[in-house]
């Protein structure tokens, strides 16, 4: 099993969510993060002092999926989250050794859905 961590634009979240639903991937954990990469900051101002808010709000989606689903999920996220502009985000794949469902105690892939 792998954990797929996708850091995407908040405005693309709805699209990604729907696209993943369409391939039956519903389970996920989402959090609000700030990030930066190549994307340059937004110039903001406060009382005449300009400043660069060099971190952008991003939405992070974390999904633990069976190994064989990884490629498909990545492809789907990429397609839905892409705008072609700098700042579209990254997808990381991280190994997961165990999964336990709190409610039932099921382990492994059975616990995933």
């Amino acid at each position: 099993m792998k954990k797929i961590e996708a850091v995407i634009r908040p405005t693309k979240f709805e699209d990604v969510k729907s696209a993943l639903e369409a391939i039956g991937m519903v389970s996920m954990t989402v959090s609000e993060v700030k990030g930066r990469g190549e994307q340059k900051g937004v110039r903001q101002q406060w009382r005449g002092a300009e400043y660069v808010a060099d971190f952008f709000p991003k939405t992070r989606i974390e999904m633990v999926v069976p190994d064989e689903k990884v490629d498909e999920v990545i492809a789907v996220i990429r397609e839905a989250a892409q705008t072609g502009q700098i700042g579209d985000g990254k997808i990381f794949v991280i190994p997961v050794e165990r999964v336990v469902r709190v409610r039932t105690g099921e382990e492994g892939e059975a616990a995933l859905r």
Partner: protein
Amino acid sequence: MYVRKNILALLVVACLGLCAVPVLAADPDGTATLEEDPGKALDFIWVLVCGFMVMFMQAGFSMVETGFTRAKNAANIMMKNLMDFSVGALAYWAVGFAVMYGTMEGMNWLFGWSGFFLLGDAYDVTTIESWFFQMVFAATAATIVSGSVSERCKFSTYVIASAVITAVIYPVYGHWVWGGGWLAGLGALDFAGSGVVHSVGGWLALAGALLLGPRIGKYAKDGTPRAIPGHSVTLGILGVFVLWFGWYGFNCGSTLNADSLRIAVIAANTTLSAAAALVTAMLATWAWHGKPDVSMSGNAAIGGLVAITAGCAWVNPQLSVLIGIVAGLLVVVGVWFLDWVIHVDDPVGAIAVHGFNGAWGLLALGLFADGTYGGVTGLLYGNAGFFGVQALSVAVSFAWAFGTGLILFGIMKAVIGIRVSAAEELQGLDIGEHGMSAYPNFVATEHATEVKR
């Protein structure tokens, strides 16, 4: 702790003492006063309603201050505002009013000395009506300081400052102009307090901010100021609206009685100056920084209100617009000047708004009074002498308020310290001073900012 208990004990004893005093009074129920002049009923209602509105400005000040500073200091700021109004009311009751409006044989040009604790002859409806209206003004002067010292000043220090300001510093200058003191003798005027209330507050704020030094992180090593955005523009602007509303009481109520229809002109002038200042600052920041700046525009509206306060009864609508335009520019330039040139860190712009514009208000009155009301005429209409007196009044208010402010904060700095520790400041004064968070149900963050290069 020991000291605090003592203070408490003293307060209790003092109050019990006061109760023992037999009821000596002039006209405490008002029947005689009303019989003499039935018009007093309307006067009282007018002045009291206006006074209520001025009291409500405290809510406005607290919203502006908390909205334009960081979430980690929000509870401390609300507490300061509650406290300075309360301590101010008590101090003005005990001492301030006696100094400002009391009389003292021979020394009256300098300060008054009668009517402490509203006892004796001061237990009189007319005196107490006056006390009420003047008390809300005194508290306004005190609360202005809160803004400029926010996010780093020790709470205990600020308690003392509030008491001293409302008991002594504000009343003395107030006596000079409104209490029959020497400036009044020279002919200095200030209708509703651009000078007496706002510039005194503003210069005290300057002294406080100067002695405290800037907030950690405010200036880069090379002195470039960094932006420290406020945590709720919504509440900050709500505060501007509340202040604007209360200001009608501030200016119109300063007729002190109900028999002048000029109040309509005062209300109009107040509106137009604030509106012009806001629009000016909006356009100026738009032109200068590319976008209309919200917090600066809000500040400018308050600046416009401050500037019209001295002259509101004596100028005409079109000149009020002009006064407002200058006020708006003064806020934009003043904030920039303090921040970029002399590096005084004034988180909410109190010095530019109240200090600079308070001074401008006194001068504007000296320039623009058009002679249609009370025969007050300014330079533009040929009365150079009056303008000179107003300029003197500006200088005096600065010397007095900034001077005593330096002394007050200077002594406290030497004796008990005026600034919280760096660790406390970084963590926020809500935790450090009050052991709490203002917003425990929201995930907090601090803007990662870097200065434009």
